[in-house]
């Protein structure tokens, strides 16, 4: 019954998926494809089919998604956690009273470390352990979910676009050495997200675990990247604080941010949590954290044109009759059901990602709230690129699943643009310029700069021709575009036999490691020389580059 289903599910795709042997270059002459029989035991059709499959891996700070190119979702998504590092035969977590025992208490900066594969700050990272974790996860993916032999499978690896070379090197070494992969193609996750959204450009807001990365992508190239520490880790911390407060109201007096008197938001660096709280807080964050679609009181202030405004009225009656508290059963020792006001559950997100209740001038460079950072990224772009990017806001990452967050970010960005225009100068000076008529009016958005041209027949005809093939550019308005995620982007690109910039062959990598990579400009020069007819050295043939990651 269902057991055979997974196999048959996979089979029809094999016909659609193109053979990869033909994609590398145009063959000089047509030839019969060679079937290689890897072993006498497997049937030829099986080995032929197996050869075609390209595997797609997406690796992040906390998960590994593995699947086959051309499918719409990964076969498995593996997470890393402290339970993985148990000794063989250690069945303690199954003891009935195990949950009640106090566990390791982490200092705040190490909170959640057990659940992470790596940190960008490599000082505390044991690279050997990272390699072992990756190896185990990949092996589990192969033996349990893919049921494939890893040999002779090309691999597409979707990685964050900024990764320390040490980490990159250990990832590649692990996969090449332990899984006999012939070649690995690297894709950057922002670009993969843009592909999965069906765009060529966009502002990718990846709300990850450790940091939120905002990348402006134009024509599949990353042109501006800004980061902030406001990501899911901070939200989870705030959530843990909230839960603690409601679980034990007496403790709130000492640690709770409310009681501290000042309205300044404080990242809870003074608190250290039992790591059991981590799992609980994360579960609650995943399940019930939400974000109001517009800030409190915004409905009264802006009486027109706000996009959320139109939608607000129909849901109003539903909200009034809804229960005001959410009851959340706590798995931790007292095991009581926490009664938390529903509006309170939005606080961790608003505080953590949007820095609500904080004076923005007091924030450090690396903890800017998301809307401000999105605005700053757009501001740094040339106006035409900005016009394209601002109407393709691609919000992705683990945090994008929070209900209401996408709309809120779009709302906040719109109101920021309305308030400031595209003027890099802010506050007092900007006001002075605006008040002084001699200094001219501030520059408007890009749409005001593009004057409609006088139309004639020939231009119209040309335009029509162009429209058939070229992009219908939507620009100048703030608009969110949904993406299927970085994995799906990698899967799409791999299934369309697009050749990646960074393709690493096993033999060349194992010979020199990352040091063997050429610069991208050298690669281009090499191909140009070849086109001129001059024979280049044999070594150039399998030269490879690290592209973005160099």
């Amino acid at each position, binding site marked *: 019954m269902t057991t055979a289903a997974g196999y*048959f599910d996979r089979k029809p795709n094999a016909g659609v998926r193109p053979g990869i042997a033909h994609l590398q270059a145009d063959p000089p002459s047509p030839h019969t494809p060679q079937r290689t029989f890897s072993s006498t035991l497997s049937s030829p059709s099986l080995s032929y089919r197996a050869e075609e499959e390209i595997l797609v891996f997406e690796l992040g700070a906390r998960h590994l998604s593995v699947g086959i190119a051309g499918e719409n979702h990964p076969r498995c998504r593996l997470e890393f956690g402290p339970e993985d590092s148990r000794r063989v035969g250690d069945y303690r977590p199954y003891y009935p009273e195990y949950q009640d025992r106090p566990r390791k208490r982490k200092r705040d900066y190490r909170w959640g470390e057990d659940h992470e594969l790596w940190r960008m700050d490599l000082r505390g990272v044991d690279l050997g352990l990272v390699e072992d974790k990756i190896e185990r996860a990949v092996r589990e993916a192969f033996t349990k979910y893919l049921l494939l032999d890893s040999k002779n499978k090309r691999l597409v690896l979707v990685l964050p676009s900024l990764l320390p070379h040490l980490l990159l090197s250990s990832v590649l070494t692990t996969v090449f050495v332990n899984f006999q992969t012939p070649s690995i193609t690297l894709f950057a996750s922002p670009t993969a997200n843009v592909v999965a959204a069906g765009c060529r450009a966009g502002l990718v807001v990846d709300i990850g675990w450790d940091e939120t990365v905002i990348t402006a992508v134009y024509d599949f190239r990353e042109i501006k990247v800004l980061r902030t520490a406001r990501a899911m880790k901070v939200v989870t911390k705030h959530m843990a604080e909230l839960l603690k407060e409601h679980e034990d109201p007496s403790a709130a007096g000492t640690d709770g941010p409310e009681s501290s008197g000042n309205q300044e938001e404080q990242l809870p660096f003074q608190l250290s949590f039992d790591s059991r709280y981590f799992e609980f807080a994360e579960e609650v964050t995943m399940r019930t954290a939400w974000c109001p679609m517009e800030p409190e009181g915004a409905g009264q202030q802006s009486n027109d044109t706000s996009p959320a405004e139109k939608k607000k009225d129909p849901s109003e009656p539903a909200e009034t009759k809804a229960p005001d508290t959410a009851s959340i059963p706590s798995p931790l020792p007292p095991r009581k059901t926490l009664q938390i006001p529903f509006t309170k559950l939005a606080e961790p997100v608003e505080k953590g990602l949007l820095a609500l209740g904080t004076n923005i001038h007091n924030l450090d460079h690396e903890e800017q709230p998301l809307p401000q950072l999105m605005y700053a990224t757009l501001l740094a772009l040339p106006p035409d690129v900005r016009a394209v990017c601002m109407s393709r806001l691609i919000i992705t990452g683990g945090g994008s699943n929070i209900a209401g967050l996408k709309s809120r970010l779009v709302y906040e960005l719109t109101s920021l643009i309305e308030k400031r225009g595209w003027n890099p100068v802010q506050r007092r000076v900007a006001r002075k310029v605006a008040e002084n008529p001699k200094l001219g009016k501030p520059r408007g958005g890009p749409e005001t700069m593009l004057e409609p041209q006088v139309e004639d027949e020939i231009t119209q005809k040309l335009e029509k021709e162009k429209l058939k093939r070229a992009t219908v550019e939507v620009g100048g308005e703030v608009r969110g575009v949904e993406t299927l995620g970085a994995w799906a982007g990698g899967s799409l690109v791999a299934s369309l036999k697009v050749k990646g910039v960074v393709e690493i062959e096993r033999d060349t990598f194992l010979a020199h490691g990352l040091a063997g990579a050429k610069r991208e400009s050298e690669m281009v020069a090499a191909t140009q020389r070849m086109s001129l007819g001059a024979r280049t050295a044999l070594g150039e043939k399998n030269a490879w580059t690290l592209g973005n990651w160099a």
Partner: protein
Amino acid sequence: MTVNALEIPDHPTRPFILSCGYCNWTSQEIGVQLDKVGQMSAQMSNIFNRSLRETPGRPTNAPEPTLDLSRPDNPGTVFANLKAFLKTQLNDHHPDNPLLTPSGDINYSSPTALARIMSLYTNLGSGYGKRSTQKPTTMRESSSLEEGLCLTSLNTDMDAITKLRNEGYPCTTSPSQRAGQLHIPCAFTSDLRPIPMLLRTKRAKRCRACRHILVKPEAKIESTRYRIRLLARNYIPTVHTKPLHQAPTQTPLDLNNIPPLQTSQFLLSLRNPLFDPIVVTLATPNRTPGRRGHKVTILCPQFDIGANADKWDEALSSASAIQQRTGRSTQRFGDPRLEYVGQEGKVAEAGKVWEKGRNWTSVVLEVGIVDVDAGDEGEEWGSEDEDVLELPVFVRVEWEAEVEERGKEGGKEKRELAYWVVLGLGRVGKLEGTVGS
């Protein structure tokens, strides 16, 4: 859940539904009907991933107003649309290999394709051999739902918030439920879908260094036997530890409660599984890794172990005194009997083997145990295994194996094997008489 046929009189093919015998739920309630009994997962994914363009009754050429795009119910449809769109774009803009069929495979079977291949040779420079000279235009991005674009809609968020507010915590999915559901957004239990059972295979295992096959099961499905099965325990020495006491009267050491701030001695015995005598070299860091380094000394780090030859060979050939002793000691390997210093005149002395048998040797190991609970109050609670006493030991084994050449007796070849092991000795107890914890 069982599959039942629906009783519809006038229906030519009777559709099937899933039903639960426990709660009387049927899949008819959510409108799921199946055509076949088997291939459940494939049928399910067909039902859920049916492409939009295949849906009857939807005009395919009606242009969508751009602003009304919102996410349809499942990303599978979006993915299929997007893939189809990108494929057509790539084909339009990169006049690719003319031999490829639209699906991307080389089609040798069709006569037209063959004719095209042949025309490549006959008239070069015309027809398919010629590349278009015009400047390649960039491919455009998708602009409608049919092409895989969907916009962030306020309704989705609004619905999600309302649902969360009305139905609360129980309607959301737990992390374990989400882990099984890989179609991405499944915040609510109503989004959950049946997942296919994972299949299992028999697999061979290879050595990661030399790719030699270590384990290979028989190909027959019913059989549980192995064709090749090389186990490590047949090649590397077995390590065994037990406490060594200072006097026969001493109370036996409780390995779950080893007293801290003392030096304890242990007997470390290695048994040789090979048929050649071996030389063993042990090494260990002088402090164990971790926050608390216990001080470790192996009193005799290098020693020989005899071959795992036939018991009787040695018994018959050796002198009677040795025979008597080794015979008795062999039985004692792994025996929980109390061992103590001074027993039969033996002393724990640096550079000396404690006891030696036919194919085993024991040496003494000294561990200076540190107090695990000391210091940093309130800094961190100790991790749950902070008190475990474990020693990493590097074992290097050398022996001379006989090389069999074809036809005649070959010479001897020196072989070497080296690996790390971790010896778990027990748990360090609390210091008696300390106040508070």
